[in-house]
């Protein structure tokens, strides 16, 4: 027979162990269900992503590509890493700092025609600041961000 306080201690340790395992299991499950991959336009153009997968794409809004319908919220534009282009369609209100030649990140899926149907479009609040994701996309594509008309931070 265990002494009562020993039994208590064992009970509490078991309680903690079970609670922690449940928590860890739940956390890992939740994590695995909610990973959004990020791809550059080049990766998308190379067919690395299948149609229907939720992911993020980032790049610059190509100059002259924004086609805003006057009678609805539908908008179509092209995002580019200066090597490859991906067309994006979005229905909704674009952020303040969305404009041509700016870096954006969009969340959504590719449709069968290879057009990215965005459910969310993000632009940074500071027009001089480039998101690390967009910068990485540029670097992956071999296009040096320094050659293009934006700055990384005000000090540069």
């Amino acid at each position: 027979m265990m002494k009562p306080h020993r039994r208590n201690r064992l009970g509490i340790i078991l309680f903690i162990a079970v609670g922690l395992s449940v928590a860890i299991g739940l956390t890992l499950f939740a994590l695995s269900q909610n990973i959004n991959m990020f791809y550059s336009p080049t990766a998308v153009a190379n067919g690395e992503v299948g149609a229907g997968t939720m992911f993020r794409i980032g790049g610059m809004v190509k100059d002259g590509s924004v086609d805003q319908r006057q009678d609805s919220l539908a908008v179509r534009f092209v995002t580019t890493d200066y090597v490859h282009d991906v067309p994006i369609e979005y229905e909704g209100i674009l952020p303040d700092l969305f404009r041509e030649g700016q870096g954006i990140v969009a969340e959504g899926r590719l449709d069968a025609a290879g057009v990215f149907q965005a459910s969310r479009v993000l632009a940074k609040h500071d027009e001089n600041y480039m998101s690390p994701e967009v910068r990485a996309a540029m670097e992956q594509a071999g296009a040096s961000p320094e050659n293009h008309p934006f700055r990384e931070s005000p000090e540069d």
Partner: protein
Amino acid sequence: MIPEFGQFSLILAFCLSILLGTLPLAGAAMGNGLWMSLGRPLSAGLFVFLGICLFILGHAFVTDDFSVRVVAAQSNSLLPMQYKLTALWGGHEGSFLLWTFMLSGWILAVSVFSGSMPREFVARVLGVLGLLCASYILFMLATSNPFDRMAPVPPADGADLNSALQDIGFILHPPTLYMGYVGYSVVFAFAVAALLSGRLDAAWARWSRPWANVSWAILTIGIALGSWWAYYELGWGGWWAWDPVENPPLITWLFGAALIHSLAVTEKRRVFKSWTVLLAILAFAGSLLGTFITRSGLLTSVHAFASDPSRGVFILGILGVSVGGALLLYAFRAPLIKSEFGFGSLSREVFLLANNIILVVAAASVFLGTLFPMFYQALTGDLISIGPPYFNLIFVPLMIVLAMLLGIGPMSRWKKTSGGYLRRQLGRVALASLALGVILPLIVLLEISLPATIAVALALWIALTIGRDLLAKTANKPDRWQGLRSLTYGYYGMQGAHFGVAVMLVGVALTSWFSTETSVLLRPGETVALGEYEFRFDGSERIAGPNYQADRAAVLVIRDGEPVADLYPELRVYLASGAPSTEMAIDAGLMRDLFVTPGEIRDNGAWTMTVYVKPFVRWIWLGAIIMSLGATLAAADRRYRKLARMRREEAVAVGSAGERGGLRPAPGVGP
């Protein structure tokens, strides 16, 4: 010339902080009373010289001295005065000076309000804080000097403060958040001082408790202000985004909440001692992690300052040395800490343990979700992000369990509670909250909604058990009023904070579940319906602000044919930077907010806009305010002052022998 005085003052403050970080600690180790007594005057000196730095930098901002680099980068001659002054913390350098100044303020507070503690202990606390302050000032001098000049020719005008920051939220949120954050340095210093002296006893817990409460109360307000500001300024109608920079304050806050509860057990029952110390260290680590993430530019976020890797490395160094050092000390000391283990499975100790586990698991999962993308990228090179669904999936079940336990915990007794007693006290309360949880949403919504029922039932459960406990606590008194008066501030503070949890729970659940929104294109005179409300766009006009131009739309909200609110959202363009900014319009109410975010103007005068109806969103911040007041009230309990006085007399009588259950002083380290 004046900014150079600031620089000079910063260097003097650095020298003082080095002295503060060495002499009192050495004095405590060697029993040198003179060195220990230097802690208080040095703290005052540090506060004064950092205050001078802050004043001089503020002066440079107010007088438009664009030869100072940060002024040129963050301010502009057209900026209204209140934003000129607060532009000081609109960038990395100035905000870090503010952060360091706040630390010196906390140090001064410790030196003033520590009269009842033994001088060795005070010397160690001030010494640890001095070292921390020295590392911050060194960081400023080495990588981010706020007094740097623009050489050789200063610009004619400044680049302007980011338009999103020109707002009352920016005036209030950063200082409050920093104040709360930095408060955890004090709690950390108390823990390290206790580890150094080897006296991790009930007295240490009692001294720490008011500081842990006040830091938490301020941090609560700081986070709530940030949430409120993001809600009305960023224009996406949300109050929490699980942004990588929002998360560290939340991690700190969760650890802080766990710490408050764990300190109670350590003080009252002398158990969970090493756990409590660990929590104090973790809460502090959370606060430094926040600084690191914001200032290193490592993660994508709306908060990120312009990044510079050398700063990140330096802060990581401070984090590593302070937290690593504390954990090392902990590893050596913790095995010596003996806790008595005498409590049953339904005791208050067990409920508080469960509270701690839930809060720490919540904090750990937020930590994991925040830093996972970084680890993932380091390992695989792939860029990923973790979306809000991850955090919601973890948080919702944890908080439901926490709320259920929250009703029982305060009713339970130390050591052992009989199951029958809890059933008698709480059985009917449970039934009542469940019944009302079904009925109330049914009356309001005319349908059965599971989320609303769960939220309302849990909130009522918390609120009603508080009432039940008040009745039980005053039942033996001849007169109810006298009974209520005999309860302590500590008790009312606890129940107040718990009531705040109930209020916030209602707000979070109902807003998350029942908010509606729609994005539309409206020509003047057109209407969009959302639920029981209609939003009518009545045209727009051009207006001029002090440093911006704007188009202002007039939107009338109608319900059942009656106008309920006029909303005027604006599309601004700031003159200095040319930056566009959207200004939301909100009609706030206790039961619902009506909210319009403007999008853009089309050639034919039509506007795109998103309209929202957000029920009970105000309850979130109301709950935070109540929690914060509760924690402050508990910190004001007379007991801390009275027991501190008794403690001082006891210390004189007994000398410095270890207390019952406390750790005996190790040879050569103890006083």
